[in-house]
């Protein structure tokens, strides 16, 4: 045993490449492309859920002659904050992933430059009203919806809930779990759902929800994996806040029915935007990249790579999605300007309700 370990130590050190300062820089050392009409690098800053298939990255680099460098970290809120504090010396050329709950902050802080990109068909529907697509180009759309464990309700001969009102119905007492609006982006979306649905009366609805023993946990992973009955960890609650796309992931092996369903009358629309940063080092390359992100090839890849729907209406959805991930026809929407104006007050009021 002792000898074995002594032998393994050098091996372990060798395995790490004895990295003295070589951390991952090897890949970026590739020589700049020689062909193409626009040599140089374009830097895309985004959140950590961003995922562009490698073949599309290659396609972009071949077509444009640009090198694409992706810097992804944090969530949409962190991304927007980063852009705001670094606006005098931006951290890249293009930002992807500012969503409708943070769009107004980005616009107010002037972090985006004029885009000058013609939006393809179907995309106008998703622009920020105050901006009309001049700075922020819609990229993808997803919905935060209440999900239910259909098997759980079938076993008990109980109809699953269908509406927001149902969640406060004593028949569903103690069955709903949602992430916190303070620390989770879908959690904030659900708070906005209730604001859109109940207007001024949203605090009253939340009082009912809490009186019906709704559980509020830290993040989406805690809710879905820790407390939801279909989450794999022996959770206790068959109703959870998640996404419209989630049911496509809970199709058991050998079955073609998903074991969960999204309640399409409880959905809030989340749109993600991209734009060229003001003061970018390579604004022209940035525009080429935004146009590429709006191209049918990228839009069609969005569902599989990022679990969201394309904003273009002329691309086809993957078969599994078409079957299991239904989009709500009439989701709740709150104007980004209104969100920006009230977010702090709503969050404070919500916090006081939940922590009372």
């Amino acid at each position, binding site marked *: 045993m002792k000898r074995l370990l002594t032998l393994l130590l050098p091996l372990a050190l060798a395995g790490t490449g004895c990295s003295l300062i070589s951390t991952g820089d090897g890949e970026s050392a590739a020589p700049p492309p020689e062909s193409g009409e626009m040599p140089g690098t374009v*830097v895309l800053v985004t959140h950590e859920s961003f995922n562009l298939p490698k073949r599309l990255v290659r396609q972009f680099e071949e077509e444009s002659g640009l090198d694409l460098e992706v810097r992804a970290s944090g969530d949409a809120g962190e991304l927007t904050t980063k852009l705001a*504090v670094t606006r005098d010396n931006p951290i890249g050329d293009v930002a992807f992933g500012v969503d409708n709950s943070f769009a107004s902050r980005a616009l107010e802080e002037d972090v985006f430059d004029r885009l000058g990109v013609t939006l393809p068909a179907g995309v106008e529907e998703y622009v920020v009203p105050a901006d009309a697509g001049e700075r922020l180009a819609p990229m993808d759309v997803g919905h935060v919806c209440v999900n239910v464990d259909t098997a759980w309700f079938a076993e008990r001969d109980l109809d699953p809930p269908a509406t927001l009102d149902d969640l406060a119905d004593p028949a569903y007492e103690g069955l709903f779990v949602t992430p916190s609006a303070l620390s989770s982006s879908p959690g904030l979306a659900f708070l906005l759902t209730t604001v859109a649905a109940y207007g001024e009366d949203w605090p009253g609805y939340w009082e009912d929800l809490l009186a019906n023993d709704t559980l509020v946990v830290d993040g989406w992973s805690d809710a879905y994996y820790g407390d939801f009955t279909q989450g*794999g960890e022996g959770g206790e609650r068959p109703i959870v806040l998640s996404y419209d796309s989630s049911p496509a992931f809970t199709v058991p092996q050998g079955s073609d029915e998903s074991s969960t369903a999204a309640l399409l009358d409880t959905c809030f629309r989340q749109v993600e935007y991209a734009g060229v940063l003001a003061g970018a080092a390579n604004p022209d390359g940035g525009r080429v990249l935004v146009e590429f992100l709006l191209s049918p090839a990228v839009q069609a890849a969005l569902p599989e790579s990022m679990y969201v729907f394309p904003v273009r209406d002329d691309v086809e959805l993957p078969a599994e999605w078409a079957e299991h991930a239904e989009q709500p026809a009439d989701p709740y929407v709150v104007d980004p300007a209104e969100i920006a104006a009230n977010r702090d007050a709503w969050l404070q009021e919500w916090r006081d309700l939940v922590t009372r």
Partner: protein
Amino acid sequence: MNRRLLGLLALAAVPVLVVGVFFVLPVGGMLALGFWPDGDFAPGAALEVLTRSRTIRVLGFTLWSAAVATTVAVLLGLPAAYVLHRTSFPLRRVVRALLLVPFVLPTVVVGVAFRQLLGDAGPLGFLGLDGTPVAIVLGLVFFNVAVVIRVVGGAWEGLDTRAGQAAATLGASPVQVFRTVTLPALRPAVTSAATVVFLFCATAFGIVLTLGGTRYATIETEIYLLTVQVFDLSAAAALSVLQLVVVVALLVLAQRARVVAPVSRAPSRPRRLSRADGVPVAATLLVLAFVAIPIVSLVAGSLQVDGRWSLQNYAALGTTGDRDALQVTVTQALVNSLRTAVDATWMAVGTGLLVALVVTRRSRAPVERRVRGLLDGFFMLPLGVSAVTLGFGLLITLDQPPLDLRDSALLVPIAQALVALPLVVRTLVPVLGGIDDRQRQAAASLGAGPLRSVLTVDLPVLWKPLLAGAGFAFAVSLGEFGATSFLAREDFPTLPLVIFRLLGHPGELNYGMALAASVLLAATTAFVMLLVERLRVTSVGAF
């Protein structure tokens, strides 16, 4: 200024520069943004937040939870340090290595395991602890008890037992020996460990949110909320300053309590366990059970697919997950983690050694002592300040040549080394400080130069804690999430980032993979710790 003081400052220059550039500058930049909102000094908006009753409540909860968690960790850690570092029993090293595992586990995974245990349907559900402050404290203790065991155990190991034996011969009971002989000798180490644990607890982020739900906020979670959600940088800056004030006050207190007296050291063989060790053994078993239960439930979960036992989750580690949830395979992320950890470790140990040497040399004048004291506290600061403030600060200050580093892959190991540095320093200082300076004088009078004196007097004693510190730094780097997630580049994610990403997607395979990846992370950490333990053993022969 005399030459000694100049020498001291020269030696301190490198670590001071490192911490200055990568910590003071960014935090200062972020504070400036808060206090000079539009270029004009306007502290009014910032100070207003300090008068809110919520701020006072949050501060109170932060201090309370950190103090209780630190006390519990020390009370549980002391007997375990004794059993694991002074007595011998089979598998001792394996147990010591396993105890460091909590240090690297992702908080979400631990949170789920804890809540399963404490939740209404869990085996401990009858205690009704789910979502209470007690659950938060338990979580904090879980993550930090290893710090006490390591730091105190390292000092205890090299303690000369003869004074205690003499006291016992003179009729002192074991309790009296412990209280009057052992404890005073251990005090610097205990204070060191407690300070580090307190700072870790006071700045804990994920575990507070996961176990406390939305009900409990600490200064750290509040700074995050104010910065990212509310975008009130003035209020966030005020809270960061408040955090700094608390940390500095704590460090001053700790320094008073840590008055270092020379301690006689001699290599001693670990004793066999005897009946007299009943109490510490019982306490150690309690710690082990406490640490083991979440880990066992994690391992069990990782071995199940569809309610059946299976290795499928482990087989999937070579892939990028269900529907390519990841950019790289989990195994590739492990290699990334190990490479980053090697860099973070040499940075932390190199700087830490310099710092420890500087702050422990005996002072000849009050000025000198004060300078050393200041330096000592200065290097603890990174542990006590919000990672959010530091993270955003790095982006806005290190953005101009010659320090245009914000895109550099180097920032990740540097940030991790900054977190590990205080641990390395606190592991080395009690031992170095305990060396009787007369030994160095004796060496000098026998004709040894300064280097020779370090090699023959300091190094033999320092070798073990140095390895312990390196192990610590390695574990910190392997498990670090906050700073890494902020700075890491997408093509080079570490294992904790990959686990977080898997946990962010629905799908049973992704969840199973996240559990298996956490086990892989834990096993890697335990394995590296075991190797470190091996090296420590061979070093005994060198005495």
